[in-house]
């Protein structure tokens, strides 16, 4: 925690229009993105995700609040200084935003040409390297119109990486892609994060994207961050109904019947421990399972079980679960 955050939004708000027609897209957001992490921002459409991610590179200026990049308030910079910072903040887009009139190679070369001072030969060589890194070296001379969606996004990625940015912003970068291509893209992002230490901020409406690559996630609703934490935590134990909705984690219908319905939440090593049977035996409790999920996020296993406990010493059973590191939530509504 000693390391200062790479990106920090302090009380940042963005309002469009003025007077009675004003709409607040982002409201008083506080956010700190650490270096080398993959930070996800999830929300339904209209939650203000697009505006929020554009505040980071000041494509949208906040109506109030601060946007810090490497400790520096971007809003106070001159246009030239801001452009220099933007070169260190790469961005990829839902609809790729490639220049249709230029080849893949020329698209990647574009940001390099902006800098000036680089020889055309050096630009070409670097662009080829970048295309190679995203696996598109054989498509260098094709126009975007001749490429598939996944290939276009790879060109977009190569272009975003051209100036060696310290952060990559992903604006729904996989939403226009089919599931398989989307997964490949996410794997590529995870590789870049691991191999280059690239910090990534992504916005999405798909929990699957967050689950697959993110370290931490913020849930955005109505322009506000309503929940923020480690991905495993948010998945396991969502605090807000909007988060549960995004997780499609409907509570199982209230089981008709007896006993106490509880939700057991656990992660890490305890996931593979044979707790349920042992505790049931020891306390004489009977259980029936209503819903459950065991999965893993970034290699860490976790599980959720909704069950009804009857007979025996239910309180003792729950205490033993708690003692073993399992969180217990009453599920009766």
């Amino acid at each position, binding site marked *: 925690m000693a390391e200062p955050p790479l990106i920090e939004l302090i009380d940042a708000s963005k309002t469009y229009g003025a007077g009675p027609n004003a709409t607040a897209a982002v409201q008083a957001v506080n956010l700190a993105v650490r270096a080398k992490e993959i930070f996800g921002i999830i929300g339904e459409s209209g939650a203000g995700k697009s505006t929020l991610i554009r505040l980071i*590179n000041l*494509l949208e200026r906040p109506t109030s609040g601060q946007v810090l990049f490497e400790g520096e308030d971007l809003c106070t910079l001159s246009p030239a200084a*801001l*452009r*220099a*910072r*933007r*070169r260190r*903040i790469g*961005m990829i*887009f839902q*609809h*790729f*935003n*490639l*220049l*249709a*009139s*230029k080849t893949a190679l020329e698209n990647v070369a*574009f*940001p390099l*040409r*902006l800098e000036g001072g680089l020889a055309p030969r050096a630009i070409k060589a670097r662009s080829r390297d970048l295309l190679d890194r995203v696996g598109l070296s054989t498509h260098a001379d094709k*126009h*975007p*119109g*001749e490429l598939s969606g996944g290939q276009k996004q790879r060109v977009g990625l190569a*272009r975003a990486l051209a*100036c060696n940015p310290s952060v990559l*912003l992903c604006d729904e970068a996989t939403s226009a892609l089919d599931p398989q291509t989307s997964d490949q893209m996410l794997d590529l992002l995870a590789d870049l994060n691991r191999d280059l230490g690239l910090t990534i901020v992504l916005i999405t409406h798909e929990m699957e994207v967050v689950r697959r690559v993110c370290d931490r996630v913020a849930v955005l609703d109505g322009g506000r961050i309503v929940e923020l934490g480690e991905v495993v935590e948010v998945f396991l134990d969502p605090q807000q109904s909007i988060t549960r909705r995004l997780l499609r984690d409907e509570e199982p219908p209230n089981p008709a019947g007896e006993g106490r319905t509880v939700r057991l939440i656990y992660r890490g090593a305890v996931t593979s421990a044979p707790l349920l049977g042992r505790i049931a035996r020891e306390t004489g409790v009977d259980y029936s399972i209503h819903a459950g999920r065991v999965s893993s996020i970034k290699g860490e296993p976790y599980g959720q079980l909704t069950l009804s406990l009857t007979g025996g010493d239910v309180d003792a059973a729950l205490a033993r679960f708690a003692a073993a590191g399992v969180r217990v939530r009453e599920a009766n509504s």
Partner: protein
Amino acid sequence: MTNLLANVDWGDILAASEATVLMLAGSLVLTVAIGLPLGVALFLTDKGELLEQRWVRGGLSFVVNVLRSVPFIILLFVMIPFTVALVGTSLGIAGAIPPLVVSAAPFFARLVESALRAVDRGVVEAAQAMGATPRQIILGALLPEAKPGLTAAVTVTAVALVSYTAMAGVVGAGGLGDLAVRFGYQRFQTDVMVVTVVLLLVLVQIIQMIGDFVTARFSRR
């Protein structure tokens, strides 16, 4: 055959064709040179665009609308003092070109404006995110992306200029349109009329074919 085209003086036709082509070439080059920056300015200063300037945009737009609403034949006369000041004469081909340009440039500027508006906003946004200057965005992204629309705009303008040149005859600029009016219409020499109209048609066809070809090349995506 000779009877059919009895009134046609091929020397006149040749001279008229030459005059039309000269007027067209001269005015088209100047129209693009003036109209392109004007159209770019109209677009960029509009609300929500890169260099939003409400008053500049309002002023430019007003001037363009005024010039576009004056009929060309009136403009020819109204412009006479300016034309004389500019090129030393209000007559002949040189005298016809300033009013042609003043009439066509605002028209072309509007076409440029809408061609730029058709460019995907995301492309501009991406260039901004990369730290491009407004100049780099315009020259490196906006204009190259608008190329198919811009070549189509040049084509439409060139064809419109062909029909404007027909009116330039009233200031003695000559040309095929002038020949059609003076001989074909006023002297009832239908054969002259037919020949000039056919030649104008061929000219328009050629312009359109070249325009379509270039546009298609640029829009190969």
